[in-house]
């Protein structure tokens, strides 16, 4: 089964799933999960790399390929979709438009296959656009402010898409074709300035989609307002489209070319690389700070995505073999951990109806598996050994250390330390601490949601212990394009400086954990106090009855820290002001051109007439 058939299958199944969901949404969602599984199986079963065409268009055929460079992304996309779909079997119970949701997510699946499976830029673009409008409808289905969020998402996505299509046609002009292979073969014939333009267009498009500062403005609202299970897809896969684009352009464009011809001169051909590396550093810092300041768990993760987008970009702009592999690995890491975090926060929302940290608390007893998923995900996200996140960060740090830039190293470490602060906060505020009275009878989520989260947890741990599973296709990709591959075995990684043995790390940490557990069980003697006793010291505070959340201990958790950034200019506010200004100027334009009296129109016409003549005449 080549990808084109799989895409057609997905398209047909979307209609069937919609119809089935109309009768019984649960059956429809199960059918969806099965469809994704079967399509994934067929892709795996086929095994061999292959190319295919979809020629229902005369003259314009859509080219697909299943090859060394997109293999890993295809599997990433399919597995994320399978997990989310599994989660959705119970998770979409409260949604208003279930059949449409299933229909649209199947279309999203189709567009994921299309984007990752594309063998030319036009195919990529078509499925990218499909994804844009389908996501728009999906985000709109979410919570109270989701409509505005969807519009912002749409606006930014369209900018990205149009930058991209301009770049695509520039390539088409320069090399006479838009297939990837054509680009690789004719790369050398493109002039330097054109190369620069194309690179800029693609990278900007990728940065918008990937949510790198200062183009991240759509992420906060889209993530927090869209339906929970779709947020997972959005952060798990759709945001990665941007980096896939940068990856592709990096693969086929400067990096591959430079590495092939001059392995020592890694990043100097394009000065923009340095610029983007610094942008990545800024993105890491600002994403981290902003994440620390959030009170909503989903917004918090959204800003952490900004920071991690910075890491991925940093890795790609560094351009060494190790960094490149680290970037790709970090895409996988972030997809998996963001998935885990959003699923677990989604599970909390499913039971409690809120994602505000200061309204929650103490859910560890009610939802142990959700807690575990969240814990494992944040450990991985913060890059703490022994989980998957550590592997990619290790790879990125290795390249940073070898190539040495103080600012970037500072940014990367700041991001790491900062991430302890922000990921710990939902952990403490949502799962630990005191449980509000109204949530005392909250139950763990239903079976399928648990299953989805469990898979994410297992994968995060598994890839952490055995990173070779993921690194193997990356190594073969590097070999195929002729870069010197990174050295890694199933659980060992080698850099120029040192060797990382994840099995040892895991054992050490596992042993430490067990030791700590034993100490805790033997010696800790916890005293139970009620939630607010620690503040009031027994006093009766009237607000405590009416607004308990202001006395929640997660409220103003990092007050001293956030006070530092009170005066910090917000990029989003800046954009908002710009948008308001623009909108009011549109009003002025309307008044001027379309709200005149008849005399006014005639004046306008006469003046235009005279101006056109006068310009030519004199």
């Amino acid at each position, binding site marked *: 089964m080549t990808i084109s058939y799989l895409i057609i299958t997905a398209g047909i199944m979307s209609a069937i799933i919609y119809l089935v969901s109309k009768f019984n949404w649960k059956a429809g969602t199960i059918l969806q999960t099965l469809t994704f599984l079967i399509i994934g199986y067929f892709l795996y079963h086929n095994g061999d790399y292959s190319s295919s065409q979809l020629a229902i268009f005369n003259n314009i055929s859509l080219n697909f390929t299943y090859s060394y460079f997109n293999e890993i992304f295809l599997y990433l996309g399919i597995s994320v979709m399978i997990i989310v779909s599994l989660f959705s079997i119970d998770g979409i119970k409260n949604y208003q438009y279930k059949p449409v949701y299933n229909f649209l997510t199947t279309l999203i699946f189709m567009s994921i296959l299309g984007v990752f499976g594309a063998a030319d830029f036009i195919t990529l673009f078509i499925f990218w656009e499909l994804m844009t409008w389908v996501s728009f409808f999906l985000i709109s289905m979410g919570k109270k402010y989701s409509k505005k969020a969807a519009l912002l998402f749409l606006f930014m996505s369209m900018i990205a898409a149009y930058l991209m299509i301009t770049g695509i046609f520039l390539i088409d002009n320069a090399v006479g074709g838009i297939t990837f292979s054509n680009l690789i073969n004719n790369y050398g014939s493109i002039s330097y300035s054109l190369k620069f333009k194309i690179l800029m267009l693609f990278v900007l498009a990728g940065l918008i989609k990937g949510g790198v500062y200062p183009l991240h403005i759509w992420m906060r609202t889209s993530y927090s307002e869209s339906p929970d299970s779709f947020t997972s897809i959005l952060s798990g896969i759709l945001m990665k489209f941007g980096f896939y684009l940068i990856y592709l352009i990096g693969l086929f464009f400067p990096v591959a070319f430079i590495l092939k011809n001059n392995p020592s001169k890694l990043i100097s051909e394009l000065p923009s690389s340095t610029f983007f590396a610094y942008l990545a550093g800024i993105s890491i810092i600002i994403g981290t700070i902003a994440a620390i300041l959030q009170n909503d768990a989903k917004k918090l993760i959204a800003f952490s995505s900004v920071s991690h987008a910075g890491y991925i970009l940093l890795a790609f702009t560094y351009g060494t073999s190790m960094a490149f592999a680290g970037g790709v690995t970090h895409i996988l890491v972030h997809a998996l951990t963001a998935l885990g975090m959003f699923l677990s926060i989604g599970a909390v929302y499913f039971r409690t109806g809120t994602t505000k940290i200061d309204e929650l608390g103490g859910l560890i007893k009610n939802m142990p598996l959700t807690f575990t998923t969240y814990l494992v995900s944040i450990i991985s996200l913060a890059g703490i050994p022994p989980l998957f996140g550590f592997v990619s960060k290790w790879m990125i740090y290795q390249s940073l250390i070898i190539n040495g830039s103080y600012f970037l190293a500072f940014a990367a470490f700041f991001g790491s330390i900062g991430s302890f602060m922000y990921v710990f906060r939902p952990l403490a505020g949502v799962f630990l601490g005191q449980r509000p009275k109204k949530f005392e009878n909250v139950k763990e989520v239903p079976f399928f949601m648990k299953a989805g989260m469990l898979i994410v947890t297992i994968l995060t741990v598994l890839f952490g212990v055995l990173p070779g599973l993921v690194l193997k296709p990356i190594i073969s990709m590097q070999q195929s394009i002729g870069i010197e591959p990174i050295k890694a075995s199933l659980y060992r990684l080698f850099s120029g400086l040192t060797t990382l043995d994840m099995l040892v790390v895991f054992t050490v940490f596992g042993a430490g954990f067990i030791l700590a557990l034993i100490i805790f069980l033997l010696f800790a003697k916890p005293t139970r106090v009620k939630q607010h006793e620690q503040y009031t010291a027994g006093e009766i505070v009237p607000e405590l009855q009416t607004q308990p959340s202001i006395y929640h201990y997660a409220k103003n958790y990092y007050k001293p820290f956030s006070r530092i950034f009170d005066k910090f200019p917000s990029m989003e506010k800046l954009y908002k002001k710009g948008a308001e200004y623009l909108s009011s100027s549109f009003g002025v334009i309307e008044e001027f051109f379309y*709200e005149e*009296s*008849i*005399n006014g129109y*005639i*004046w306008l016409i*006469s003046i235009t007439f005279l101006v056109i003549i006068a310009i030519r005449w004199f």
Partner: protein
Amino acid sequence: MGEIINYWTFIYGPLAIFLVGVYGLLTQKNLFKLVISINIMDLGVNLYIIALGYMDNASAPIYTAKLAVTSSRFVDPVPQALVLTSIVISVAVTAFVLALVIKNYEKYNTLDLIKIKGIEND
């Protein structure tokens, strides 16, 4: 062609009339006056068309036995045919617009442009 351009009055006179109409459109606020301005412009254009077809010492473009003997010059028949059509169209438009003005008056009780626009926008 050069012969025709010499008749400046015939060319620029109608254009001046046309501009008078434009001036009306630029300044008048009364619906009727706007219609009249349009009519003045019509007049200017029609005169212009006729003027362009005119030639000295030429007879009407009707082919008769007498004509064939005495003269070899016609005025250009095409503009005359065109101007007929143009006049018919302008009459039709004027008739329609006048009906429209009455309807406007029935609806808004005023012929003042600014007032009508104000009512429209409310």
